[in-house]
C-alpha cells in the first residue's frame, strides 16, 4: 500500500520579535526557506520583524 503523501504546503507561525506574543499564521511551500517579514504588531503599534517559529527547534 502506498504511503500517505505529505501535503505540498505547510502552515507556519510567524512570531513577533517584539516579544508581545502576537503571531500570524501563513502558508508556505514545504520546501521553501523559513518565512520572515516586517509586519505590523498591534500590541506595540509598530511595524516589527516577524520570524517563522520552528516546531522542533531546527530550521533550514
Amino acid at each position, binding site marked *: 500500500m502506498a504511503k500517505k503523501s505529505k501535503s505540498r504546503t505547510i502552515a507556519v*507561525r510567524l*512570531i513577533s*520579535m*517584539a*516579544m*508581545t506574543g502576537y503571531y500570524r499564521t501563513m502558508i508556505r511551500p514545504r520546501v521553501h*526557506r*523559513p*518565512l*520572515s*517579514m*516586517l509586519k505590523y504588531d498591534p*500590541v*506595540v503599534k*509598530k511595524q*516589527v*520583524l516577524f*520570524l*517563522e*517559529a*520552528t*516546531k522542533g*527547534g531546527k*530550521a533550514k
Partner: protein
Amino acid sequence: MSVNTAHLNQLPVRLRNFFARYPPQTYSSLVASRQAPPEAEASAEKTLPSPYTPDRDAKGAHKPNRDAYSAARALLYSDPKSPNPFLPKKIFSTGKWLGPKFGLRQQADLVKLAAKYNVEALLPPGPKSTEYKSARLAERGLAIKGTGIGQKVKGHKWERTMEARLEDRRKAMVEMPEMIRLWKQRGHGRGWRQWPKR
C-alpha cells in the same frame, strides 16, 4: 478620678440613664485601662498570632491558643468590685456564668449613640467598642490571604508576570532597529540563524 462629667447633662436620656447607673468614674474604659493588669504587656509581641495562616484549615493545623495573651481581650477588663455590665461574669460559688447586663445588641446601640456624642470612652470596655474592634482586627488581620504584615496577595499569573513581560518587550523594542538592519543585511532572512522556537 479625673473623668469630666460636666457635659453629660446634654446627652440623650438613654445615655444619661446609663451613666447614672454606671458612673464613668468607676466603670468607664478610661478607668478600666488604668486598672488593667500590666503583666500582660510584656509578652504581647511574641504571642501575637500571624494575621493569616494559609494552612489553618489543613489537617492537623494548630487551633488558635485561647490562653495566649491577646491585646484585644486585655481591653475587656472587669473589676470584680464593680463588674463590667458589658461582660459576662463567672460566679465562682456555683461555677456558672452570668450573662452581661446589656446584651450585644443593646451594647452596640449604646456604643453607637455614645460615639455620636463623643463620649464612647466613658462607656465600660466591651466587645462592641471601637477600640476593641480595631485591636482585634490588628491582631487577626483581615481573613483574606496576603493582607497581613509582610505578606503579599498572590494575584493572577498575568499580574505576577506583567512586570517581567513588559521589561522583555521594552528591551526587544530597543533592539528592534538593529535587528531589522541585520535582517535586511542578511538577505531578508536568507542568512538568518536564530529562528525563534515555537
